[in-house]
């Protein structure tokens, strides 16, 4: 029985060999740049490796140190989770709402507005303009504006004061995060058959919001899933914005996320083994969260 199944699958594979051949190049890249590094990282996480000398096996010492002896890790972990929890859903729903709102407009206007919303992400590092807006100099944009209004009398150090820098980074993050998910939602809205809306209207849907929640979203299952995966990966992998605005390291590690900490350990501090251990923990965390979200969405969406 098992053998029959195996032979059956093999035959199927041979029939589809053209498809496999097409996928092969990408598979190679995927293997080389994703699978192998992850596996290597797993093994390296049990060593002490400063990259210039050979690795030394230390067992689970890295993990012990991470959870019990490293307050920066704890800080970074909490920062990352807070970040993800706040910016993830906010930007997710922002994408959704904006996509829904501009869905109504004529195609040209929609195209223009899509461009406008997507522009921050597309331009890569444009968010550094916020460094000028939040500059701690009294001539910085926000500071001089507030001083003119009389709200503050001295320049506020937005990006170096622990009280304000997290909020600033979150604001910029959300601003810059209308990314690929946004586009997929727009596409998703387009694919829904309008006859469903007519049927719903006849059946007594009262307003647009109800239509959104009961009809549109369930039909957009795949897009919502894609959006969720992208946002979560993005939120947990956030670091670039924090580094660009507040520098690295941030004051008292208030803006340090796991990604920043890992890259700091690996590249600046020559502690590759420890960095691998930490990145593995991050990996596990992301998989966990992803699974949870996907279960939730799958429950509420119809295929």
């Amino acid at each position, binding site marked *: 029985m098992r053998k029959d199944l195996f032979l059956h699958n093999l035959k199927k594979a041979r029939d589809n060999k053209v498809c496999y051949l097409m996928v092969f190049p990408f598979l190679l890249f995927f293997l080389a740049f994703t699978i192998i590094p992850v596996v290597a990282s797993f093994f390296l996480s049990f060593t002490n490796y400063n990259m210039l000398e050979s690795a030394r096996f230390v067992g689970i010492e890295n993990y012990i140190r991470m959870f019990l002896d490293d307050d920066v890790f704890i800080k970074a972990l909490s920062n990352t989770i807070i970040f993800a929890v706040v910016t993830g859903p906010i930007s997710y729903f922002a994408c959704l709402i904006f996509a829904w709102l501009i869905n109504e407009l004529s195609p040209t206007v929609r195209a223009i507005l899509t461009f406008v919303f997507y522009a921050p992400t597309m331009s890569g590092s444009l968010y550094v303009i916020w460094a000028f807006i939040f500059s701690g100099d009294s001539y910085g944009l926000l500071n001089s504006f507030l001083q003119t209004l009389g709200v503050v009398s001295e320049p506020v150090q937005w990006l170096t004061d*622990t009280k304000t820098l997290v909020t600033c980074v979150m604001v910029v993050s959300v601003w810059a995060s209308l990314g690929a998910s946004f586009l997929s939602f727009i596409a998703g809205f387009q694919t829904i058959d309008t006859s469903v809306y007519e049927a719903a209207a006849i059946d007594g849907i009262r307003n647009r919001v109800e239509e959104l929640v009961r009809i549109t979203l369930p039909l957009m299952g795949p897009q919502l899933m894609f959006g969720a995966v992208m946002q979560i990966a993005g939120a947990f992998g956030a670091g670039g914005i924090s580094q660009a605005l507040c520098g690295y390291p941030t004051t008292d590690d208030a803006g340090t996320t796991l990604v920043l900490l890992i890259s700091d350990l690996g590249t600046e501090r020559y502690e590759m083994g420890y960095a691998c251990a930490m990145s593995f923990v991050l990996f596990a965390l992301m998989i966990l969260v992803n699974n949870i979200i996907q279960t939730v969405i799958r429950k509420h969406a119809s295929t």
Partner: protein
Amino acid sequence: MNQLKRYVSTVLVACFCLSVFAGISVRAEGQSLSDNLSGTYSASVSTYEQYLAEISDKDALTEEIKLDLSTAELSGEGVAKTDGGIEWRQSGNKATFRFSVKTAGNANINVIYSNISEINVNKITFDVYLDGEQLFNTMAGVVFPRWFESSEITQDERGNDISEELTVNKADMEERVYASDLYQPDPMLLYFSAGEHTLTFVGDNTDVLIKEITVCPPEKPDNYEDVLKKHQNNGVKIVEDYFDKIQGENTYLVSSQNLIAGMDRGDSSSEPNDYYALKLNMIGGSTWKSNRETVKWMVNADREGLYRLTFKSRQNQKDGFISSRRLRINGEIPFEECRSITFSYNTDWEMKTLGDSEGNPYYFYLREGENIISLETVPGELSEFAYEVDEIVLSLNKVYRQIIMVVGTNIDKYRDYDLFKEIPGIEEIFKENLARVKEVRRKIGEAGVQTGSEMVVFDSVITLLELFLADDENIPSRVETLNSYAADLATWSFETVEQPLAIDYFLFTGKENELPKANAGFFKNLKYEFLKLLASFQSDYGVVGDLSDSEDKLLVWVGSGSEQMSILKNMASSEFTAKTGIEVEVALAGTSVSRALMADKAPDVALQQAGDLPMDLGYRNSAIDLTQFEDFKEVEGWFMPGSLVPYMIGDACYGLPCTQSFEMLFVRTDVFESLGLKVPTTWDEFYAILPILQFNNFEIGLGGGSTTFSSLLKQNDLSLFKADRTGTDVASDLAATVCRQWTEFFTKYDFPLTLNFYNRFRSGEVPIGTSVYTLAAQLDTLAPEIRGMWAMYPMIGTVKEDGTVDNSQAPLGDGYGSTAVLLNEESKEQSWEFLKWFLSEDTQAEYGNKIEARLGVVDRVPTSNVAAFKRLGWSAETREVLLEQWSKQRPTVVVPGHYYVTRHLNNAFRAIVYSNENPTHTLKIYSQKIDREIKRKLQEFSIYQ
């Protein structure tokens, strides 16, 4: 009784009246503060411009008076009479010449001189005195160019042209004396009355032999028509058929080191040109633009005659701008029209045949055989306004500061400041400046400059000043705009003096010859670009020079830029390889040395790397210990004491410094003068002047970095770290007090935490502050409007128990300079030879001067070799001050886990300053964190070691 009453009342009235008067006079004493400070700023000596205006009505001298050098009075050891003339070798020495003038008149001073040094490449400067006095301030700092000749252009094995070498020339040169203003088109004109006179030359930067000095009438060439007639009357004919092309990059002599051949790959018609190889095909571009920079070419004419002259030129650097040059043939201006030849803006090359406005070409006389053609940068038509604009900027900046004193930087929008009443005189100043700006703008428009962008600056200022004069309540909210417009005007005047020009080649042709086209056609260029694209896949332009196959070649990585790399490569091949036979390959590879080590592709020598690299590698056994070499001690002596401390682990040394910087105190002396303040030398004096500065709304530019903290600790005989690098050493009470002192600047005294020191110092808002000393080079070149109004002083120090002042600095060792490391055990002997050669005095001096010539004074190299530093372009006075401060610098050790130090010091600083935590307690917490990390690293390293 009535009489008595009358008496009493009279007396009472009299007393009352007297008291009223007394009251008025009392109030008169307590005038507004700004009154005392609004004195006009007057120079102690008049300017050259004013002097010229005074003597403009006098006639020119009619005779030529050659000064007798043999009877000169000399003073000082560095000047001596020789067979050829008078030789100067050191600064500060002077020679005085006597002569008599028969009839009074205006004259120039013509000097024949020659350079007598092989190694001094800086400009020759003198201070000149007539009859013992300087009639205007720019008689000081008179410059004679030191001429350079360029070597032949050679190719490397891939066919790329190698930048040529410029060597100092020792031939006799003849130059007239120019005043040292930034923009003077003509030689210095002095009025000599009839009778006995003395002329004194005091040397500043010398190494020169002066052979002849002549007082002669100013150059006054005839106009073209007369000159042409004169030649034709002498039988010289206009040549009909002749074609001679001289390439611009084949120069004969140039007056400064930045006039080297450049490369134009934008158009296939530039000669020589190749789509594959890099060819040097023009002179100038963006490098030939400063006043008096001259290029000379040698032209061989078959026969005597009158020829047409055509330049293939391009001015594509400044939109709408006209660049000017003065043409001389065999040292003389051929005719009046050659005083200023204009080149207009064009993105493409132009064939410019020199001729009159109707298109008729000029014919130039060339004698048979060798002729020398030279083009000298002269200020263009707009440059005369630069003076005027500079004065307007000064005046506006002064007004700006006066307003800030009253209004502060935090302007209250709802208050009536009544500035015209509060600060008497500024209304007039605004009116005057408005009139001047309008006048300048009008004159520029008349001069025919087309560009709108030039006018924008002036139009904005006019609008703003009119707004101010309309209602003085418009001023407070727009005072920042006033500041930025003043800076814009300063930039305009600075840039307007620059006259960029590029010359590909020039032609001497006969009357009938056809001229080639300036640019290649569209299709030709298309083909060229396409071929270039293909070639870019094959040729590696990131590596300079020959790629040698030899086994023993050294691989050197440079962490700075491509100019540095190519200069280094040239010097390495011509000096190092020539002497030792070791070939060197130089590559630009920035900061990825540690990654290269991991991949086993590391170079042999890495230069200009980050300050923490030697220790990071040293702890991990990846860099070579330099103390194993025999002459290490000798090399150690090239640097300031204590320079190697950040690179030593125990007795082993893992790196050497390439560049080192240190901080100086920058002070706006004009602001201090107007406030009556003395520059502080101790912290107590500093605290004493703070109230006055801050009361007048000035701010202090003391940075909040850890260097300040570390330096303060050193001044109190403490140190951030234990000498054995096992931890921090700030647990003592004194350290806590120092920490308190440091943070109080920002809490109690409210210094700004972040500011753009350069801009604010320039505008005068921040009249005192600390910054790296190279800021001086920037200010000197980029901020001409504040010349003479600022100075560098040694750092503020702490008074010790024995009364001496300790103003040493202690920057953190891992961040304060760039370093060099050796990485390859197998090639260590040769690598060490190379490193020694690079950091030696001669190489560093030559390298530094070349970089400065190529990239400008702004990029003057802060070299670490003390002897080489003395040979860079700093003036003698500045150099003394700098050396004094530099010698007091002692960088801290670099501990394992050093990256945590800056972070936690910053965290501590911010906790104390932003959140008002207790300094002692916070310092303790963060130093403990640093210690923990250090301990962990020590454990890690002791296992490995």
